[in-house]
């Protein structure tokens, strides 16, 4: 039986002025952030932003060039062994298991490396397999698991020790929507039970309604840190989908008329739907949505509806990183 101990105090994760250089290149340049217990903190950024490097530093796999990293008050550099008992890592790789062993045997093996006896490791392994929905497939060789099943197995492994901090790296990048949703549910469940979660992703759409707080990294620099709502508030949407009553005009005539009406307030793209009613309008810099709509209605076009074409959170991402995948 494992020996219970008192969890050290302090925020789940505390990173202060961490830099990491690879030769001349700065992968991280003075990154600071803090994650409380029970909080899901998204580490958002495009490829090469430094997310994985930061997670590896948190896991004790890479040393920072400068700066301090603490997990529940323990210094990751000096108290590495203690930190490892508190952290559950869900890596981005698909093959982090022994493919010739069953899911159950893999978990028993890793459980024993965390100090569980064979009997305790077996019991815990069965419990967490059940929890992630792999209850009926515990004897199947891991090499025969689908990507989604392997990811769930990785979560099960992280759950084995009921860790106080989860480090999750691109956990859903190769999963179907249902699989991704289940993974997020497991992690949310862990956070609800008090775990602090650092969730690295480059997919903006994952954050909404899931992450409590966000740190946006770009080329190793923190471009934003705060709540998801605060990130959204930074967005200044410029693209809108308009529905126009088209009367008896053809789509080409209507497009031409809208462009003329809009003038310098924006651009109407002609690649809208072919129903002749929907048009994408990009508001010009210096103009507002109100001015653009006023210009259109002044030319006797009837605007039936107006929606942003890109969720505002994606817009914030693009504006803060100067592009990149969304």
């Amino acid at each position, binding site marked *: 039986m494992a020996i219970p101990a008192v969890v050290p105090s302090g925020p789940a994760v505390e990173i202060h002025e961490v830099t990491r250089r690879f030769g001349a290149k700065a992968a991280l340049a003075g990154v600071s952030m803090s994650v409380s217990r029970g909080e899901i903190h998204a580490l958002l950024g495009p490829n090469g932003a430094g997310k994985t490097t930061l997670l590896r530093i948190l896991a004790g796999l890479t*040393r920072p060039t400068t700066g301090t990293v603490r997990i529940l008050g323990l210094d990751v550099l000096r108290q590495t062994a203690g930190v490892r008992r508190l952290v559950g890592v869900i890596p981005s790789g698909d093959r982090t298991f022994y493919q010739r062993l069953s899911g159950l045997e893999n978990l028993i093996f890793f459980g024993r490396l*965390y100090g569980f006896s064979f009997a305790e490791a077996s019991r815990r392994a069965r419990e967490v397999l059940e929890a992630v929905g792999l209850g009926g497939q515990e004897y199947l060789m891991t090499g025969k698991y689908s990507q989604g099943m392997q990811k769930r197995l990785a979560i099960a492994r992280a759950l084995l020790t009921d860790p106080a901090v989860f480090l999750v790296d691109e956990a859903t990048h190769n999963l179907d929507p249902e699989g991704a949703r289940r993974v997020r549910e497991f992690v949310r469940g862990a956070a609800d039970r008090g775990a602090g979660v650092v969730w690295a992703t480059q997919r903006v759409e994952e954050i909404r309604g899931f992450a409590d707080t966000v740190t946006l990294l770009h080329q190793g620099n923190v471009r934003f840190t705060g709540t998801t709502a605060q990130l959204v508030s930074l967005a200044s949407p410029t693209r809108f989908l308009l529905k126009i009553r088209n009367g008896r005009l053809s789509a080409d005539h209507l497009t031409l008329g809208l462009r003329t009406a809009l003038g310098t307030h924006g651009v109407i793209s002609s690649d809208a739907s072919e129903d002749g009613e929907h048009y994408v309008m990009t508001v010009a810099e210096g103009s507002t949505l109100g001015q653009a709509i006023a210009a259109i209605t002044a030319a006797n076009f009837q605007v039936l509806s107006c929606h942003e074409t890109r969720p505002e959170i994606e817009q914030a991402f693009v504006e803060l990183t100067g592009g990149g995948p969304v």
Partner: protein
Amino acid sequence: MMEAIPSPVGIVPELKKLSAFLRRDALIAWSYRRGAFSDIAGMLVQALLFYFLSSLVDTSRMAQLGGTRSGYMGFVVVGLTVAAFYQIGVTRMMSAVQNERFTGTFETLLVTPTSYATLQLGFVIYDILRIPVRTAIFLVLAVTLFGVDIRWAGLGQVGVLILALLPFVWGVAAGLTGAVVAFRQAGSIVGLANLVLVLGSGTYFPLQLFPSWVAATAALNPLAIALNGARAALLAGTSWSTTLSQAAVIATIAVGAWIVGTLAFQIALERERRTGNLGLY
């Protein structure tokens, strides 16, 4: 809220983890169980090759062991037995790290609260237990099929020599694994250096056939001393006192090699942490 931290610390809990490695590797080996037959077949072919080669060797040119001269077949069979222990022990750790790195499990092991020493031993524990069984099968085959005259009473002495050699094998394995961790493509150079060591220990040919400096270096080579002692015990029935003095020399050098080797492994891992290349292969 998570309040239970497992993982008691200390030597005993770390030693208990070795049984997890043993079970893991035994299960993986069982999943490849047909490979065991090809291993035995390989041993047979190797013995057959040396059997025919032995008919070409003049026994009068063989070294004297305890006042008697053994045939080449006996000489090489014992040589292969001890050298196999060394070679498998050394290469297994290296290949295990390379393999774990390639499959992505290496970093997963490193994020568990497991000491470097446990990991090193864990990589080879299955083979440490497997090799004596394999050795016994090889010896029985050599005796029954090729008429090699083995003094079975000497097996205990060979066991002592191999035990004394263990820290040397561990140290060399850890050092070479460190080289592969740090330099990745060092595998072939490391393999070549290893082959030179095995040849220079007199595994296949008596040392007196080599230049005199090879024999001189063999006096400080634990593998050469172990080979010499094992041959004397199994082929000439040498005394326990001779074996124990040989084991003492081996153990002294071996402990030094173990310290240097394990230190090199730790330095290599720390270097990779600094450079951020730990999981790359």
